[in-house]
């Protein structure tokens, strides 16, 4: 599986990746509308560079190893490809926006101002790479400093580990995307004073740091949460059917017996009378 590794410390915030993404994916210019989030991603901006005064951070779809959006889409319009990219099939989509609700990173965007809207997000330039027009995503090839690189996920993980080990004072000892929500195909390594926990919605939860039963673990893939409920469906269906038929049979029989008894009683009374 292919992946992207972004090194926060190397990014200079030149926005070349954003430009390249726009050109390659043929995206229209962006106008800030009131329904957009403040992170710069929108239906016409599939990657954006954020700045906090010291570091630059490139945001894009994380292409989870076990994506929540893929598991919740009722028509399977989103699917995980063999290269690791999560791609979108607009022909199947019916516009329910469940993927936007379920994404733990809040990535998919919507064409809110179109009468015929579609879901928009980074697809790792899947179609163009498959055609052979480009060998790697537009953003990584455009990066002048090598802050964001493309390659096999295992090798990139090794590379990231190597960088962290080489300069333990500089880097935070975490590879973002290695394990969280079951691992992602877009990895981040970052400087000591710049933790990236805020990217994941989990870490903005109200009950931060509190153990609640029934909450999935940070490193568990989202699809697991609905698994038991979906697994219980056939049992609930057939069980309810059996229960209802049983009750109906019992009550019906009781009523029948009662009415027969009454009849017999009446007969006896008639005979007696």
């Amino acid at each position: 599986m292919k992946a992207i590794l972004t090194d926060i410390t190397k990014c200079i915030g030149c926005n070349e990746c954003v430009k390249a993404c726009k050109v390659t994916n043929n995206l229209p210019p962006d106008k800030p509308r009131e329904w957009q989030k403040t992170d710069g991603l929108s239906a016409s901006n599939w990657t954006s560079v954020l700045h906090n005064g010291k570091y630059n951070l490139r945001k894009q779809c994380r292409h989870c190893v076990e994506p929540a959006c893929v598991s919740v889409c009722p028509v399977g319009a989103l699917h995980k490809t063999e290269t690791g990219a999560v791609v979108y099939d607009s022909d199947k989509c019916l516009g329910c926006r469940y993927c936007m609700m379920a994404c733990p990173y809040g990535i998919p965007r919507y064409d809110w101002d179109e009468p015929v809207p579609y879901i928009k997000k980074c697809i790792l330039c899947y179609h163009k790479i498959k055609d052979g027009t480009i060998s790697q995503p537009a953003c990584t090839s455009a990066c002048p400093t090598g802050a964001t690189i493309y390659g096999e996920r295992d090798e990139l993980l090794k590379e990231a580990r190597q960088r962290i080990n080489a300069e333990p004072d500089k880097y935070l000892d975490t590879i973002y995307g290695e394990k969280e929500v079951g691992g992602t195909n877009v990895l981040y390594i970052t400087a000591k004073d710049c933790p990236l926990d805020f990217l994941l919605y989990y870490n903005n939860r109200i009950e931060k740091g509190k153990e609640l039963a029934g909450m999935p673990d940070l490193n568990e893939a989202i699809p697991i949460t609905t698994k038991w409920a979906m697994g219980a469906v056939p049992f609930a269906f057939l069980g309810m059917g059996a229960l209802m038929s049983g009750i109906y049979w019992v009550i019906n029989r009781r009523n029948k017996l009662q009415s027969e008894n009454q009849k017999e009683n009446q007969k006896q009374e008639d005979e007696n009378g």
Partner: protein
Amino acid sequence: MDRINKAKLILWTILGIAGAVAITRFIFGLGVTTNLTDNTPWGFWIGFDVMGGVALAGGGFVIAAFNYIFGKKILHPIARAAILTAFLGYVAVAIGLLFDLGLPWNIWHMIIYWNPHSPLFEVGWCVMLYLTVLTLEFTPVVLEKYPNIKLLSIIHGFLYKIRIPLVILGIMLSTLHQSSLGSLFLAMPYRLHPLWYSPIIPVIFFFSAICLGFMMVMVESMTSSYLYRKEQEIHILGKIKKYASYMLIFYLFVRFADIIIRGAGSFLFSFSWGMSLFWIEILLSCIIPLIIFSMPIKKIKISILYFGAFIGVVGVVFNRLNVGGITHLNNLTEIGSFYFPSLMEFSISAGVVSAAMLIFFYFVENFKVWEESPFDNLVINKASKFNSFKVYLGSNPIVNRTKFSFSFIFAFGLTFALISGGEIHSSGFDKSPVTKARGADTLLIDGNRDGYGVVFAHVNHQKLGYTCGYCHHINKPDDKATGCYECHDDMYLIGDAFRHDWHSSSSGANLDCFKCHNKSVSKGMNFKFSNKKATHICQNCHNKIIPLDSRIKILKTYKSLSYTDAMHSLCINCHEQKLHTDSLLKQIKPNLAQCSKCHKNFSVFKKDKKLFQGKKENKWVVVP
């Protein structure tokens, strides 16, 4: 008939409003007609129309179960009405969903493209199947009316025979999707407040749907008795009241047990927005109805019983809204803006509900839904006194038709008038007006004053030997260096450099129309699409509007670029051009045309504390 007619008049009016809004929704798209955002992709239409609607229609399967399966024959008189309510409820859900879906014409895709992992897939299938079952359950009522047509009576007989299996199938399907609506939210553990997110949320949804089913049947029975001036079905209400209270106690128990076992008990008493929503919900959905239902039926007034059942219905629907959106993370933390439905969302929902109610009245009046026809015990009150001032519109049905259709078109027209396409189009934009650049020799170009601008050495550019007109490409009359902000007046939106109203108004330039518009060709076929021929160009009057040495030689349109686009195209183009032509410059300043050359690290401004007012240190902002 007065009550029911007044109700119908109101419902038709709401329907008219909703009709106009519906057209707007499909022409302009979701973004401008709703308050949905990328943070809150689901809103009122999912929370109320779909989740609330399915729960409200729960009365159908609950009453069917009690009547047909558990043999509680006392409920028989209201069984048909309950099934009709459920049927219309599901139709309303389906129609409400069509408004919410981005691509509603693709809704049938669920039949051919399968993703069995998705809870929504299961909900969709169950609703489809259950709608079919409900149709089959209700068809006999319609067919009864035509006993003389043989084919119909055969179908009727067949459906009557299979009614028990149908009822059981209906209950099975209802169990599934009532609970699966809860499963939808299992996939968003980070979105819901801990008081609502629970691994057994499907079970909680199922139980609350049963509670709501009972209470909704009570409300429906009492409302229709009131509207049609029937006698209240006291003994049936008493029975349902009893079942409802047992179920509510059980639901309350499950709810609190779940919260305490999960360890979220501390949230019950830690004061917050989420906590207050929770207690309001519990108070409405369980406690008030329980108190009222615990009183013996003979002793309480019907209006109080109505109040209790109605509050209960509101409470459970409020639970669906809470799960569906209100308690979501973005509403409770600073991650996103607070979502509150727009008026258009409310009116569409109200319209769908009114349509369902009107169809309900139609069925009740024309088919044998109740054991006695609504007209049987009505005292037909004749026109009280002849009033010569009143216009005679005809007999009762004709009067109704006239009034209802008039209220519909009037409401439609009025709403249509109030919705302005132009305003809708511009409403979605965040306006960010541009102000004048600050500084003297060195300017801080920062149109919207957020502190993240570009320091521009104005004096250095002057020293390079450029005249003012080189950059200030279009000037106001009798001016040499009109500021950029005067025409490029919004950071991101296209502006208008020409002010037509000023030119024509008597307080402004006071020009007559034919001063600019060519009289001979401005009207008629010759005009066609050539705007140029129709008007004189600006330079005819303003001979110095474009400086001779300007980079821009001709005026093509009246539109002015957005501030950022204008600045970028002016600076970057020139810088790139210089870089290409001047080889010396390329050696000294190779980064001249790169973004970071001008957009430097903001820390340079940090001394200027004023600029950073309201900007938190370490906050992530988008690099422009």
